């Protein structure tokens, strides 16, 4: 064996760059509309950014889940002087204008953010997928109404629609989740419909028809499993944008009502004292941006991993 196999050192070195071969994959792109050219076998590189992003999200999720049991002060009750600056100890990150601990408010804000983002995306995914699949299967009138629903929702800019809804309902978790998932619905309808449209002509669907399968069975057993991958990828892309939207609503004072803490509301409160106590707005701002950024990175990795080219991000 040793004699036949050429020694590694004697192997002629070929300059691969001359053959226009991409040696490195592109750095992961966030939400890029046209995915970088990637073959199915190429795995996205596990970059340092991806590791950091995963760590961040895991940490934030852990804090959000265990907020009740953490050794932190209550996010509602004032514990010291108003606008106390950050220093080591219980007032790490400082106190807000009412004297509440910023650490606790940020941790509980993470909970608000993640609960709303995950809840909204899950509801929009289920309802949107259902409508999309029904539209593909039954076509005609159902398809028309699905299209009309999507168009009506899309005809109003998202935030304007949300504040309009907020003008007549008193916001709570349920209302905010319901309202934002309404805004997300068209995207999920379109993705599930475009994927399912490609499947409905497939031989296995025709075969299921021929075997006398009921519409419910064809939708849940034949169409649904094949659209699910695309939908989950799309959900991954949508999740951080839900956080952006929720933050915007809370910033405007139309999100989860106080005393529950939300990052957007913290930024709005801190903005009033930006000149005197800048940390109050800047700390939640940075945490908010880093969190959304980390989720974008994860979503992009997910999309590259599942290699979805057909899903239109918009």
């Amino acid at each position, binding site marked *: 064996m040793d004699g036949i196999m050429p020694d590694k050192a004697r192997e002629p070195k070929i300059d691969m760059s001359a053959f226009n071969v991409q040696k*490195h994959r*592109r*750095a992961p*792109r*966030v*939400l*890029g*509309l*046209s*995915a*970088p*050219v990637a073959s199915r076998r190429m795995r996205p590189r596990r970059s340092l950014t991806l590791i950091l992003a995963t760590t961040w999200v895991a940490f934030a999720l852990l804090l959000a889940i265990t907020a009740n049991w953490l050794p932190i002060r209550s996010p509602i009750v004032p514990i010291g002087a108003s606008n106390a600056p950050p220093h080591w100890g219980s007032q790490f990150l400082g106190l807000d204008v009412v004297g509440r601990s910023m650490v606790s408010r940020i941790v509980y804000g993470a909970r608000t953010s993640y609960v709303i983002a995950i809840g909204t995306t899950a509801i929009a995914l289920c309802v949107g997928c259902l409508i999309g699949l029904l539209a593909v299967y039954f076509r005609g009138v159902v398809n028309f109404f699905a*299209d*009309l629903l999507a*168009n*009506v929702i*899309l*005809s*109003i*800019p*998202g*935030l*304007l*629609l949300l*504040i*309009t809804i*907020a*003008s*007549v*309902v008193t916001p709570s978790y349920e209302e905010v989740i319901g309202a934002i998932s309404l805004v997300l619905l068209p995207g999920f309808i379109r993705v599930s419909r475009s994927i399912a449209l490609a499947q409905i002509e497939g031989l296995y669907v025709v075969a299921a028809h021929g075997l006398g399968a009921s519409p419910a069975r064809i939708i849940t057993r034949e169409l649904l499993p094949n659209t699910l991958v695309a939908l989950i990828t799309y959900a991954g892309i949508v999740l*951080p944008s839900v956080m*952006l939207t929720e*933050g*915007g609503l809370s*910033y*405007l*004072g*139309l999100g989860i009502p106080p005393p529950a803490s939300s990052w*957007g509301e913290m*930024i*709005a409160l*801190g*903005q009033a004292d*930006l*000149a005197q106590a*800048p940390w109050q*707005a*800047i700390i939640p*701002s*940075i945490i*908010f*941006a*880093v969190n*959304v*950024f980390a989720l*974008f*990175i994860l979503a992009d990795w997910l999309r590259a991993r599942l290699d979805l080219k057909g899903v239109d991000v*918009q």
Partner: protein
Amino acid sequence: MLRFVVSRLGLIVLAMLLVTFCTTLLAGLIPGSPAFAIYGEVPLSFARAWNKSHGLDNSIWVQYWHWLSNAFHGNLGTSWASDGTESVSFLMGQRIPVTVEIAVVAMVVSLVIAIPVALVAASRQNGIIDRFVTGVASIWSASPPFVSGVILVALVADHWRLLPSEGFVSIGTSLGQNLEGIVLPVITLVFVVAPFFIRVLQGDLVSILNEDFVSAARSRGIPEWYVMTRHVLRPASASLVTVAGLSFGYLLGGSIIVEVFYGIPGLGNLAFNAVNNKDIPVLQGIVVCVSLFFIVVNTVVELLYRILDPRVRIT
């Protein structure tokens, strides 16, 4: 093509009818009477009389017909909060120029930044500039306007004291002060829109750079800058038109946060105040106008796209 236009127009009309109907429903959805929201604690008889005088005791169909026929005559009703002294169209007419000014400036600045940056980044794929631009664009796209606004105001207005952080002066009063006042809002909006443009354009440029006609042009010895601008940028601009159209709709209708953040008396701020005051007619007028504009822009963009890129017409 004609079929497409006609079916699209039908859909627009239907969607607008539904949108306007839903906004009419809003008034009835407010618990109790809107009078409580506007005047605070008032006797029940007053609220009843107020409802009657504003036509809220009629059935929803009558209310809708009333609103629709008025709207076709250009009358969008009067603001509840002002006790019926200010018409909705007057209030909106006052605010629209402000929003349009900021939107147009932000749009132009974004395009002026995005096109060269995307060209440079795409021409040297995986180079330092490309990585830097991709990184910065993704960080920007993760910061909503109120986050980048906080950082901007804290640095530029409070720390360095270069520009005012609020206080909008209309363009008629003083051009200099007006421009000074819109610098930060415009930068904040550019932070939202420009990364989006850069990503879309860069993605398109990269895929077009791999096409045969680019290699053909290069092998004929055409200078690189000419290849980039004529052969590559031109086909890539089709999707930029789409994105720019969508973003312009966003800037006009969705810049609520930026306007509230900087206290700019624009359309978004008017909508925000209307929500807080339960001033449904004003909100209704804004939603209807913005969504009409939004739909029309989207449709025009879609048409334009079909004209620019004949391949789309087949599907």
